[in-house]
C-alpha cells in the first residue's frame, strides 16, 4: 500500500510517501522557521497561510521524486492533531479533497504517535516494547510504548515544554528564535562549574517535569549579572551552559527512572530537543551503564515531518481504519486516547 503522508500541525509543511512493501520512498519538507523568526515565535495565521501555499507543490515534488503518478496512490494520511487548529485544517482539507478525487481512503493520525514511531523508519528500528522520551518545543513526555496504539503516559511537563524553555532562555540571552540550537552552541564555550541551576522535580519521586521555575532562575541570574555590569560574552556562555546542564540532567534523571519503573531496556528519544548533543552524550552513558540502548530517528525526522505521518497512516490504513467524510482537526488530543490499529479509537 502506497500512502501519502501530510504534516501541517505547526510551522513545517511535510509530505512523504511510504510504501508498505518498499518502506519510505520519498519525503519533502518546507520549514517556515525563517518567516516566524521575525516575530520571535510561530504566528498561527501566517503558518496556516504558508501551508496553503506550499502543500500542493510539495506533494508534486514527492510524487516526482518517487517516480509515481497521483493515480498510483492507495491512501492518504494527514496530521489531525494535536497542533494549531488553523494549520491542521489545511492538511485535513487538502487530504480529504485529494482522497475523494482519487477515490482512495484517507485517515487523520496523531502527531505525537508519528514522533513515537519515527525511529521505525530507520534501518535498525527498536522492537516493542520501549520507553519513549518526546521532547520538543511543544511537548515533554515520557511514554511506555507496548505496541502500535498501545501507549501509557508515564509523565509529562506540568508547565513549559523543554524546547519552549530553551527558546525563552535564548530570548533572555539575546539569541535568535529558534533558541535551542543557539543556546547549545553558546553553552559549548561555557564553564559548567561557574553556576549551578536547580533540577526541577527531581528531588521527589515521579516522572513529571517542570521547566518554568528554571526559566525564572535564569532570568534572575541574567539580571543580577547585568546589574553588576558582568554580563560579558563569557558570563552569557556560562549561564547558557548552566541552563543546558540543568535541562539535560533533569531529562536524563527522568529517563533513568522511567527505565527502572518499566524494566525496559530500549529508550526512544524524539522531538526537536533530541538533536541536542549533550543530551545524546549523557543518555549514551546512562543507557550503556545498564545494558540498555537509545534509539533516535535520523536528524530530519527528529523534528516535524511527513514521513512519520505516512508511516503511522500506512499501519492504520492497512488495518482498515479510515475517516468518514468529515475532515478532522483536533488541537488537543491526549496520546493515551489512541487504540491499537484496526480497533475503534476513542
Amino acid at each position, binding site marked *: 500500500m502506497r500512502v501519502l503522508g501530510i504534516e501541517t500541525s505547526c510551522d513545517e509543511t511535510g509530505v512523504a510517501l511510504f510504501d508498505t512493501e518498499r518502506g519510505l520512498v520519498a519525503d519533502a519538507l518546507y520549514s517556515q522557521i525563517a518567516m516566524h523568526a521575525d516575530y520571535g515565535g510561530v504566528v498561527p495565521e501566517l503558518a496556516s497561510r504558508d501551508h496553503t501555499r506550499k*502543500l*500542493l507543490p510539495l506533494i508534486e515534488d514527492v510524487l516526482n521524486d518517487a517516480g509515481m503518478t497521483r493515480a498510483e496512490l492507495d491512501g492518504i494520511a494527514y496530521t489531525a492533531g494535536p497542533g494549531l487548529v488553523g494549520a491542521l485544517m489545511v492538511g485535513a482539507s487538502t487530504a480529504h*479533497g485529494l482522497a475523494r478525487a482519487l477515490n482512495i481512503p484517507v485517515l487523520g493520525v496523531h502527531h505525537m504517535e508519528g514522533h513515537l514511531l519515527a525511529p521505525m523508519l530507520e534501518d535498525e528500528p527498536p522492537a516493542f516494547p520501549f520507553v519513549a522520551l518526546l521532547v520538543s518545543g511543544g511537548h515533554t513526555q515520557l511514554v511506555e510504548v507496548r505496541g502500535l496504539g498501545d501507549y501509557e503516559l508515564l509523565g509529562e511537563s506540568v508547565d513549559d515544554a523543554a524546547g519552549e524553555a530553551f527558546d525563552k532562555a535564548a530570548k533572555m540571552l539575546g539569541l535568535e528564535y529558534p533558541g535551542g540550537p543557539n543556546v547549545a552552541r553558546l553553552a559549548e564555550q561555557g564553564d559548567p562549574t561557574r553556576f549551578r541551576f536547580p533540577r526541577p522535580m527531581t528531588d521527589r519521586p515521579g516522572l513529571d517535569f517542570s521547566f518554568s521555575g528554571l526559566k525564572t532562575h535564569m532570568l534572575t541570574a541574567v539580571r543580577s549579572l547585568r546589574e553588576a555590569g558582568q554580563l560579558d560574552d563569557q558570563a552569557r556562555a556560562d549561564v547558557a551552559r548552566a541552563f543546558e546542564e540543568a535541562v539535560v540532567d533533569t531529562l536524563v534523571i527522568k529517563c533513568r527512572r522511567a527505565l527502572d519503573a518499566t524494566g525496559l531496556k530500549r529508550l526512544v528519544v524524539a522531538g526537536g530537543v533530541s538533536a541536542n548533543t549533550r543530551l545524546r552524550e549523557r543518555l549514551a552513558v546512562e543507557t550503556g551503564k545498564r545494558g540498555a540502548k537509545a534509539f533516535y530517528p535520523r536528524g530530519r525526522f527528529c523534528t516535524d515531518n511527513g514521513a512519520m505521518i505516512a508511516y503511522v497512516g500506512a499501519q492504520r490504513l492497512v488495518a482498515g481504519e479510515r475517516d468518514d467524510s468529515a475532515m478532522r482537526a483536533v488541537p488537543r488530543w491526549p496520546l493515551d486516547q489512541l487504540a491499537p490499529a484496526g480497533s475503534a479509537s476513542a
Partner: protein
Amino acid sequence: MPTLLALDASSSACSAALLCRRDGHDDQLLARFVQAPREHTRRLMPMIDELLDEAGLTLADMDALAYGHGPGSFTGLRIAAGVAQGLAFGLEIPLIGVSTLEALALAGHRRLHLRHVMPVIDARMGELYTAAYRCHAGELTRLADEALVSPERLTLPAGHEEADWVGVGSGWEQWEALPVTVQAGVSQHLPDMQPAAEDMVLLAAQALASGGGEAPHLAQPVYLRDQVAWQKSR
C-alpha cells in the same frame, strides 16, 4: 459546454453548486446552501456527493472546479481552498478562485434584478471588505476595487455616486457607523445576503469561457487583510 463544481465556506454558511452546460440543452444548475457555523469540515463533502448523485455525474465528469477565494473567514477560505485544491489536483483539472464580493453582487443581480450593487462583508476587528459592481444581463463590471476599510471610511465608487446603489452583505449591519454620504446614496441595504456557491459556479463558468482557470496550487485565497502579525521590536 463545461461542467463545473463550486464550493464556498467563506462565511457562517456552507454551500456547493454544480453547473452542467450542454449545447442544445438548458443549463442544469444544482445548489446546496446551509447555515453551518464551524461545521464546514463535516458538511462540505456530503454536500458535494449529494449534488453529484442528483445530477447523475461523478467527479471525473468535471471540467473545472471553483471555490470562494475570499475575502471572508480566514479558516473558512482555507478549508474551501484545501478541498478544492485537493480535488482539482487529484482530478488534474483547472481551479478557479471566485471573489466572494463578486458572488454577492451577482446574487443581488440574479435574485433581485439589481443594477448597481455594493457588496460589503464584515471583516471583524472594526473593518469591512468592500467593492462595487454594475450588473447587466448577468455580466458584472467592477467599479471599485476590492478593499479593506473602516466603516467611517466607506465611500460610494468615485464617479458613480449618482447611481441607484443597493448594499448587500453582512457588512451593512454596521449601517449606523457608515458616513451619511453612503447612507444617502444607498436606496436599500440587505445585510442577510451571504456569498453562495450557486453564484460562484456561474462566475467560474464565465471565467473559464474567457480562458480563466489555473493550476490548483496557484488559486490561493485572497485575504485582503495582510497585516495579521507585528514584528517584534528590536
